[in-house]
């Protein structure tokens, strides 16, 4: 042990009354080290002076004989009500704490599940283009009983596919956040009118334009392991290859690039 460390441990033990059999090496060192003796001696002197200084603050002081009468007088007075400002600030602090805790917990869950947020257009999700996951991504509508924004499809029960199929095909969580539609706009009517038009090959782009204008934006929480990679041909390729495929040797560089 270094002299400095011995000195620090010795100071700690001496201050808090923890000198014992284990302190023998320290005390042995002390006999030969003048610097450590000085250090310890000063610490003892400092504590002694500190006690004197503290005692001087309260020396001979005692509450006045009228203290008890003062207590009775204060008890007779009205009980102080907590100020509204204090209550408000306490409530604000509590809410901020709760919010911070929830944000932290959400972040921890995202990190723990190793997922990343990937914005996906519904057209990509339905056609299989985009992320390798094929989670049903039909955005929730008002008819589902939930607001279109900030709803989670798998947890909101808005998917058409059964949950088992979801789990098998899509480990991703799909969060339909949707483009917020201004209140009063006939979103449902426009979408209903545009849907058959989109299926009709002969439909004009003018008819499809409102659909694009209010196309819901879907955000998926995709496991990072299953992040979409694209082959040189542009086709999306999942790193989660089917099990019957031959595994690629680790030494072979993959001709793929991560999505931006």
């Amino acid at each position, binding site marked *: 042990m270094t002299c400095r460390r011995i000195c620090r441990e010795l100071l*700690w033990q*001496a201050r808090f009354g923890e000198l014992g059999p284990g302190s023998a090496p320290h005390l042995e060192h002390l006999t030969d080290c003048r610097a450590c003796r000085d250090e310890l001696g000063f610490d003892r*002197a400092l504590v002694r002076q500190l006690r*004197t200084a503290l005692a001087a603050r309260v020396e001979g*002081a005692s509450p006045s004989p009228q203290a008890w009468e003062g207590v009775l007088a204060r008890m007779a007075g009205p009980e102080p009500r907590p100020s509204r400002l204090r209550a408000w600030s306490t409530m604000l602090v509590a809410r901020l704490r709760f919010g911070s805790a929830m944000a932290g917990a959400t972040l921890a869950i995202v990190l723990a599940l190793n997922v990343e947020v990937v914005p996906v257009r519904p057209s990509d999700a339905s056609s299989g283009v985009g992320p390798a996951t094929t989670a049903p991504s039909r955005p929730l509508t008002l008819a589902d009983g939930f607001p279109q924004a900030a709803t989670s499809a798998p947890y909101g029960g808005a998917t058409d596919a059964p949950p088992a199929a979801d789990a098998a095909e899509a480990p991703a969580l799909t969060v339909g956040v949707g483009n917020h539609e201004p209140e009063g706009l006939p979103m449902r009517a426009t979408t209903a009118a545009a849907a058959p038009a989109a299926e009709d090959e002969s439909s004009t782009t003018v008819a499809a334009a409102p659909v694009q204008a209010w196309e819901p934006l879907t955000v998926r929480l995709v496991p990072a392991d299953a992040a979409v990679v694209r082959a040189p041909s542009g086709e999306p390729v999942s790193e989660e290859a089917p099990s019957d495929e031959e595994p690629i040797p680790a030494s072979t560089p993959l001709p793929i690039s991560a999505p931006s």
Partner: protein
Amino acid sequence: MSNSQRGRSAPMPVAEQHADDLVERMQGDDLDAFEEFFNAYKRPIYATALAITRDPFVAEEVLQDCFVKAYRVRERLDPGRSPLPWLQRVAINMCYSRVTKRSAAVEPLTNLITNLVVDLAARPDQVVESREVLDVLQRGIDALPPKQQTAIILYYLHGYSLAESAEIAECNVGTMKSRLHYALKALRARLPVERRLPVTGARPALRRVIR
């Protein structure tokens, strides 16, 4: 140096102070029991308040408010435990809420009087020297963060054990040690350099310890 060997300004440690049936009687609206309760605990509470505020008037206000609060929440006091840690905690909080309200740390009048009166029995050089060090330490104590100030008051002034001090300060023993360590470090840094190494008398004492 054990806790029992340390100098104690408080008459009794927390563990030895039993509220007996005072709290139970207080809970039965017995005002005499409350007066006994007040007389039993007023000194350590007043000492804490005075050590923090350094103002007898403020300290007495804190004392009274502390006991009024104790009576108002008497139903929540646990008769099986000493109320002293709770009282100390309330008093400390009240002190710091008052200290921070005061805009500037005005030196109490009593301190000025004390500084003007010199003990003629002591040698003038010793008086000046010790007063200088004590003055530096007093200012250093005032400048400490509240948690460290509380730690040294509980441990070095009242003589509570580390566990008792930690209970009052609502922290663990390791944290209490750390606060004491940093408080001493800060106080030491305030002393003039030439006053930081008074080693006289340290060696014989340590020799005795080793033997």
